[in-house]
């Protein structure tokens, strides 16, 4: 996958060039490219004057960062406690089966990424699934297929 990296300096310069900005810069890059391209990690390390190993350590420590490109639609199944006891595992099962990918994977055509998330804070409507930024509450097995069709 090729990217236009010309915007990288601008993303990096949104924050002061000091090691404290590392996570915030990685977040900017993640938002822009929806993952952290290798090139971006190297440029960040260089700009902040920190070893690449430290950038890599932060990029792999936090759940929000991904070293692999994500699909067009990122589907996140909330598996927080409230969702768990209201059947989140069943929803996850169904999605994995429908998309032929496991949680954490992206479909080959780059259309879908399936993830599980510890809690999205909408517990009163458990079980919850988010598709990109949109929340879907009280999801039941019969609604799962419809979720995938929704824009």
């Amino acid at each position, binding site marked *: 996958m090729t990217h236009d990296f010309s915007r990288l300096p601008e993303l990096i310069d949104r924050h002061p060039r*000091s*090691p*404290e*900005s*590392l*996570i*915030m810069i*990685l*977040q900017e890059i993640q938002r822009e490219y929806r993952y952290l391209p290798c090139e971006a990690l190297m440029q960040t390390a260089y700009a902040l004057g920190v070893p690449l190993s430290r950038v890599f*350590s*932060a990029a792999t*420590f*936090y*759940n*929000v*960062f991904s070293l692999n490109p994500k699909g067009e639609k990122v589907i996140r199944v909330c*598996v*927080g*406690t*409230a*969702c*768990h*006891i*209201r*059947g989140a595992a*069943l929803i996850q*099962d*169904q999605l994995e*089966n*429908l998309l032929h990918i496991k949680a954490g994977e992206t479909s080959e055509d780059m259309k879908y990424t399936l993830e599980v*998330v*510890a*809690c*999205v*804070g*909408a*517990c*009163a*409507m*458990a079980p*919850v699934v988010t598709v990109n*930024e*949109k*929340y*879907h*509450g*009280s999801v*039941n*097995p*019969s609604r799962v297929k419809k979720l995938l069709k929704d824009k």
Partner: protein
Amino acid sequence: MSITTPQQLEKLHRECRAKRERDKKRVIVCCGTGCLANGAAEIVEAFHKTLKERKIEGFSVEAVKETGCHGFCEQGPLVVIEPHGTFYTHVKPKDVANIIDKSIADNQVIETLLYTDPVTNTKIERYPDVPFFSHQQRIALRNLGKIAANDIREYIAVGGYQALAKVLTSMKPDQIIQEMTDSGLRGRGGAGFLTGKKWRTCASIKDEPRYVICNGDEGDPGAFMDRSIMEGDPHSVLEGMMICAFAVGSNQGYIYVREEYPLAVIHLQKAINDCEREGLLGDNILGTGFSFRIRIARGAGAFVCGESSALMKSVAGEIGEPRAKYVRSVVKGLFDKPTVLNNVETFANVPIIIVKGADWYKSIGVPTSTGTKAFSLVGKVKNTGLIEIPMGMTLREIIYDIGGGIINDRPFKAVQTGGPSGGCLPESKLDLPVDFDTLTKAGSMMGSGGMIVMDDRTCIVDLAKYFLNFLVSESCGKCVPCREGLYQLHRIVTRITEGKATEADLAKAEKLSDAIVLGSLCGLGQSGANPFLSTIKYFRDEYLTHIREKRCPAGVCKALIRYEINDKCTGCVACVPACAYDSITGEKKKLHVIHQDKCTKCGACYAVCTYDAIDVI
């Protein structure tokens, strides 16, 4: 316009209040995350559109207010018509024209949109009469659902920033700290440390600069109190932080917000920008010489970052690994400087304590746990949502009076509080009062406020496995007892759920748990064995049934159950397409069969069957 003196703030307050009183008739549309997910944005849009076409005398589109979370998310989208307090639930865009014609123009009530109480089966007209709300006492959540979340003037209208003006003009830092200490306010993040004491320690350290951090990294799965406050009443959090900063002598604050809460970041940032514009943040606030700034730091998805030392490392751009706390973070915290770290709900309580006084606050709750506590009441309970109750209310009152009891009136099994580090309490403990010390003594803990109710269809061993799995994946990996111990504990509990364990494994798990508790570095590890320890304490029998009889009484653990269709089956065929594995066959209107060789025990058929025709054996 910038506010440069306390007198100007007072004047603005009177103007805003007068405007609010003039616009008596208001439409409140709940725009918390829950209601937004159910389509609240479309409701607001429908109001704007319809009001453009229809002119109602004495009512303008400005009186349609988008507020924060009311807490009753399950009934959303919610619309309240003030001043009567008419409470409409499950509102759809097509209802809006009707609401405008009948309820706004003609003061009528639309019966079909009213809330039906599941206990008495009667319709309830007014918001304060709904049992879910009437048993609550709202202090930290006082403005949620009452004022527009994104409007500083609404906050000022209801007395916002009066506490800040009071401390800046008439109180010494020491007096503020004394007031907080006298109020007995304990940290709402879970540990319950006395807020006043924390502030006093920080103020007494001779080192500068000092920092104030608000912990908005609400990581406990099953809790969303802080999210609702940050989204629905961001100014009360900012005001609490400003008062703290003045008391401890700090000029820089941070709010650490969880990555999963994008709306909270937007609302907090807007609130900060508004304060800067109005002169309530920045240099020489209200002309008193006090300067304070707040920055938002966004989390990046790590549960351990809710721990104070890990959070501070994360703010500083490092990976969030906790450190041993021989020196507390209040002494050496962010950038190794003295730092006060309080939770969102704690800060939201501060302004009102300053305005109404420590004696007032102390009079609520019980002597060792004063005031109120917000909980997210979720799980298998009829009325799920966000609640706030005075300390000392019993678990039974919360679950049955506010929560309306268990869904489908099934038997109650357990209530889980305190998140992954907390514990499960059985029916015999339901009459315990909810306060910091009682819950800890009973083997659970207050935690940040998740309260998850379980019925007889929830397997306790599976729940322990669930929490352990969560902790294993969130352990930062720095210390061995937590990293390796929890991993092994999870393996043992998993074996129990698969019917492969022996009683010797149970003894081993108990010994291992002790080692994890004793040997871990931070709070996550020290409480990491709690999911197992607290469930084995009250539900040993259920563990033993899994081990001895290879049976899961709740019908949850896949390896120990199978699904079968009984003769209640009407042949409605609803289960056939629900099964993703083609394991159900049968003719229309005839008894169906599940082929055990293909069945993955996913439970999809059980969830769709409306005839109670599928048994879990």
